[in-house]
């Protein structure tokens, strides 16, 4: 059952997908459902002996194109709606033990093509207002499958965080006439202390207002609304900067760092988001040290106010050193 319920106190939808309780949970490596299907072996999600990059509909989707009407549920104050959307799984590689950080840059470049393809195809669906590309990596994030993969949620609404970001960008444009993200990037480059990797077309930095100690944002230098708007040179450079940042993340504490990756870009709701949406990728690693995690506890969850016990300038320096060290 896929259903949306409106929370009028926060002004946002909550998605219910009750069948997800039964999804596959940390199977042994030899029974990974994301590996290729070996001859005579158990059938996995991929009915081929080998593959490059694969996208398929999630078996346990949070949203489905044919979600039933929410008849009889909700009220005028708390309406319910069908959880109509698309959930895809993106398999980065057939190599069960690889990660985005350990893959050749060329493969990440190919992934950029796949992400752009999915943004365009899913965004063209009449019921899709936002295409959200993301990855959950590592036990600390709660992944249920270790095979290198990401996900795409094609939402029937613009989700709260990107919506809030777009509203801030709109206010900034009304006030200054300029793009909020372009101005933020200019300030980061001018300051320089939190920049961790620079390419010709993309820049990775720990933002001045990072919510997680080692949070990093990868911004397009040009005000491109979406990944589909990037030209070939920009796509190649995005892969290069992502590779450098992720290798640096793994170098930071000497192990494959867990993280959440989120791409923010223009909604596909038919609105004009030029000059407001600015394609960028955000990473939120939960580690504050090698063996201590940042939890979203009372203040963060109950009040929405993040408290971070280290300044971004300090963590950015360590992350920059890790990026540079890994590159030598």
């Amino acid at each position: 059952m896929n259903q949306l319920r409106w929370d009028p106190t926060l002004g946002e939808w909550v998605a219910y997908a009750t069948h997800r309780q039964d999804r596959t949970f940390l199977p042994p490596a030899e029974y990974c459902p994301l590996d290729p299907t070996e001859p005579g072996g158990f059938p996995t999600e991929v009915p081929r002996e080998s593959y490059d990059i694969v996208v398929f509909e999630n078996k346990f989707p949070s949203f489905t194109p044919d979600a039933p009407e929410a008849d009889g549920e909700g009220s005028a104050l708390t309406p319910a709606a069908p959880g109509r959307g698309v959930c895809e799984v993106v398999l980065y590689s057939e190599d069960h033990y690889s990660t985005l950080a350990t893959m050749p840059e060329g493969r990440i470049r190919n992934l950029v093509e796949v992400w752009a393809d999915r943004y365009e195809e899913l965004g063209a669906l009449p019921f899709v207002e936002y295409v959200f590309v993301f990855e959950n990596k590592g036990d600390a994030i709660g992944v249920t499958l270790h095979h290198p993969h990401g996900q795409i949620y094609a939402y029937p609404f613009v989700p709260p965080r990107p919506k809030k970001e777009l509203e801030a960008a709109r206010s900034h444009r009304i006030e200054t006439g300029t793009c909020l993200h372009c101005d933020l990037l200019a300030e980061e480059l001018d300051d320089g202390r939190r920049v961790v990797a620079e390419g010709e077309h993309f820049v990775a930095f720990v933002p001045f207002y990072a919510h997680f100690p080692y949070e990093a944002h990868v911004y397009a230098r040009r005000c491109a609304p979406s990944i589909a708007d990037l030209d070939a040179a920009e796509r190649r450079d995005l892969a290069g900067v992502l590779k450098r940042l992720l290798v640096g993340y793994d170098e930071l504490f000497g192990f494959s760092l867990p993280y959440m990756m989120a791409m923010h870009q223009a909604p596909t709701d038919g609105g004009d988001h030029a000059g407001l949406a600015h394609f960028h990728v955000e990473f939120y690693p939960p580690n504050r040290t090698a063996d201590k995690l940042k939890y979203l506890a009372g203040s963060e969850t109950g009040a929405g106010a993040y408290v971070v016990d280290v300044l971004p300038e300090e963590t950015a320096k360590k992350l920059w050193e890790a990026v540079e060290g890994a590159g030598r």
Partner: protein
Amino acid sequence: MHDEPAIKKEREAKDDGRYIIFFSFEEEGEAPTGDDEG
């Protein structure tokens, strides 16, 4: 130098009706499968 990689996209239906899309590439200096460093 900045040419887009040649992309091949094959869409199929799985046994349960869900779609699956196979992407393969013929550029970027790597074989289609199996050569990841990790």
